[in-house]
């Protein structure tokens, strides 16, 4: 049983009177599944850290109130002790593995507890059987897809045999098929009577598992809903709470149709072929994309979406041609004209202020233009800030602003909405649509159906290294992409 009584916490680095959570009272019974939901920054991650002991043992700050698990106060115990009965799964698959190979990772928790070798091997086998991981053992962590990584993360926690699992936005880096794999794992845990505490704003995959939803806003628990109660909310109410759609089937009901405007120009891919160490990973016989579109690039992990993006923007070597209105554009020219907004925007901010960032590698005469772009992007007042002090959404704006200042015409976004709550997702939508007016082509690699419906004008479906379909997102296209997402889920489940 988990008990939080009058818990208030303020991170050490936070300004005064900015509390992460305030006066939290929450009891979670054994075997119950509680989902903490709300906007980004509402305090849901903080609550998971309070339960697994990272607060106050790793993240320091002012803590008042009592947090106890199975009757024992968290702050009086060592983390290594807590880890025996509270297992944690984190958001980012690339930073939660201590080992670089899967089997050692499964063993890691047990080894730390000092269990004898025979027991550890037995538990690995048990966990591997429980979650059908036999194909994943003895693999390098770096080879796995996001979904496989999260399964390994859950299984390696499971091997320690904790009663309580705490998961912090476990789905935020996953594609729809992987989310279903995660759901399977969670169902199994629940059926074994484990207590689950999950912080999440994507709720659709949790509906069959959850007992109570706890909705947080600005660090306080505003209301607690049962599954029936939350299902009775209209989609509008759900998005007003900052949450993602409960039912993928309903997502287009709350978005306006996207207008198609044909500019008369087009990009054409001819006989494009890209090889990685001898194997062809992408082959496109012929594909024509009208200029000015916002293209959603969908498909499984590893289907060739990023390779396509890499070829288009000229950083991947390939054979075949990419043609704009009948004139071929060389790799070099395309690299000059294109820009990719990466999933981790931190990789592409290089300088000490936002102004320097957008002025990087452009001439003095364009200063005025740069200032107007800063204004247009709504970051003029941040011009003197250090880019790395900004929030995720602001960083994304700075990256896009710097692309616009450099006169980039082909804009590629790599999963711009992964891990975003409803409002931030809508902001990203508005931003991408606004910017697309100045671009020749916007390409968005995404797994987010809600986002596709709200923002994109065409869908490019990549499968097994080739184009499976390309269609405009009119009402028929919408039905088709929805079907694609739902069917794709079912076929995945059979695997």
């Amino acid at each position, binding site marked *: 049983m988990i008990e939080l009584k009058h818990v208030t916490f303020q991170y050490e680095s936070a300004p005064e009177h900015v509390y992460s959570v305030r006066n939290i009272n929450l009891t979670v019974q054994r075997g119950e599944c509680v989902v903490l939901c709300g906007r980004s920054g509402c305090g849901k991650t903080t609550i998971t850290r309070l339960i*697994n*002991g*990272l607060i106050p*043992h*790793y*993240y320091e700050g002012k803590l008042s109130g009592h947090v106890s698990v199975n009757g024992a106060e968290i702050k009086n115990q*060592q*983390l*290594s002790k*807590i*880890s*025996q009965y*509270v*297992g944690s799964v*984190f958001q*980012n698959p*690339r*930073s939660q*593995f*201590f*080992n*670089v*190979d899967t*089997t*050692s990772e499964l*063993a890691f*928790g047990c*080894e*730390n*507890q*000092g*269990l*004898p*070798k025979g027991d*550890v*091997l037995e538990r*690995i*086998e048990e966990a591997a059987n429980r979650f059908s991981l036999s194909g994943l*053992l*003895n693999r390098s962590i*770096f080879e796995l897809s996001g979904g496989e990584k999260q399964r390994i993360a859950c299984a*390696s*926690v499971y091997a*320690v045999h904790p009663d309580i699992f705490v998961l912090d936005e476990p789905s935020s880096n996953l594609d729809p098929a992987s989310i279903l794999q995660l759901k399977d794992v969670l169902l199994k845990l629940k059926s074994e009577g484990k207590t689950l505490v999950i912080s999440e704003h994507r709720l659709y995959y949790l509906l069959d598992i959850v007992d109570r939803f706890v909705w947080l806003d600005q660090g306080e628990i505003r209301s607690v809903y049962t599954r029936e109660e939350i299902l009775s909310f209209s989609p509008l109410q759900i998005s007003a709470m900052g949450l993602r759609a409960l039912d993928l089937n309903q997502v287009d009901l709350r978005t306006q149709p996207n207008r198609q405007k044909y500019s008369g120009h087009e990009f054409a891919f001819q006989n494009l072929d890209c090889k990685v160490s001898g194997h062809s990973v992408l082959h496109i016989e012929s594909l024509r994309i009208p200029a000015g579109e916002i293209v959603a690039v969908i498909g499984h992990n590893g289907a060739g979406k990023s390779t396509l993006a890499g070829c288009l*923007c000229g*950083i991947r070597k390939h054979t075949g041609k990419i043609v704009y209105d009948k004139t071929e554009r060389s790799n070099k020219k395309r*690299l*000059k004209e294109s820009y*990719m907004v*990466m999933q*981790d925007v*931190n*990789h*592409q901010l*290089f*300088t000490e202020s936002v102004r320097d960032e957008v002025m*990087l*590698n452009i001439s003095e005469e364009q200063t005025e233009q740069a200032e107007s772009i800063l204004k247009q992007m709504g970051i003029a007042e941040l011009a003197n800030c250090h880019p790395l002090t900004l929030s995720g959404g602001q960083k994304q704006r700075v990256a896009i602003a*710097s692309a616009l200042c*450099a006169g980039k015409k082909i804009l590629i976004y790599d999963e711009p909405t992964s891990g975003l709550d409803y409002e931030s997702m809508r902001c990203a939508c508005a931003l991408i649509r606004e910017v697309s007016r100045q671009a020749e082509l916007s390409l968005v690699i995404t797994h987010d159906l809600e986002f596709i419906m709200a923002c994109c004008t065409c869908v490019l479906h990549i499968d097994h290294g080739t184009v499976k379909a390309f269609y405009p997102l009119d009402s028929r296209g919408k039905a088709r992409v929805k079907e694609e997402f739902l069917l794709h889920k079912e076929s995945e489940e059979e695997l």
Partner: protein
Amino acid sequence: MQLMEAAQQPILRIDARTKFALLFGVGISSLTFPPFWLEATTFILISLLLALNKRHRTSVKFTVIFLIMLLLDWLVSWKVSGGFAALLFSLVRLGRLMLPIFMAGILLMKTTSVSEFMLSFERMHLPNKLIIPLSVMFRFIPTISEEWHSIRDAMRFRGIGISVRSVLTKPMMTLEYTMVPLLMSTATIADELAAASLSRGLDADTKRTSIEDVRLRPQDYLLIVFSIVIAVTGGML
């Protein structure tokens, strides 16, 4: 046990401690300009070890480079003479001497798992305070290379790509543009990694166990003795 049997074990298992010994031995020996027969022996030994530890391609690649350098050495001493030849000669020779050091480094880094590292350090009786950061450091190397690839792509989009020219003409700027994003992204990862591993009991007071089968085998003793011998005698031969 069946599950573990599936592991693709290398043909010749060598312990992480042996790999450390080899790295130091080869390093010292190479820097003391060993005679050719010793250099060749060391080279062949290490490339064999790489091949036996599932690094065939690395092994072949280095052998080709080694042979090309030998050929160059031979051509230079035969055809050309004078100051320029001497310069070229010593450059080629120096490069060739570096090869086994790189290879021993690759052998250590690429064929050892993090848990093997941890256990070997424990066997070397290093204190826990040192073992954890050292292991994390080794864990980090592939992560850094992953991050580095996407940063390099990001730089190319901004026209600040890394090239020989940019390093020579604007070394500080190039360094800044690489280090700032690299440090920022790795700092975040390091923080999350630390939190994740602590929440899984890494700093427990109980003694860690391990599923790795780490012990010194006959081949390890032979190789360690070899390393010590080449390190000590390097300067004398």
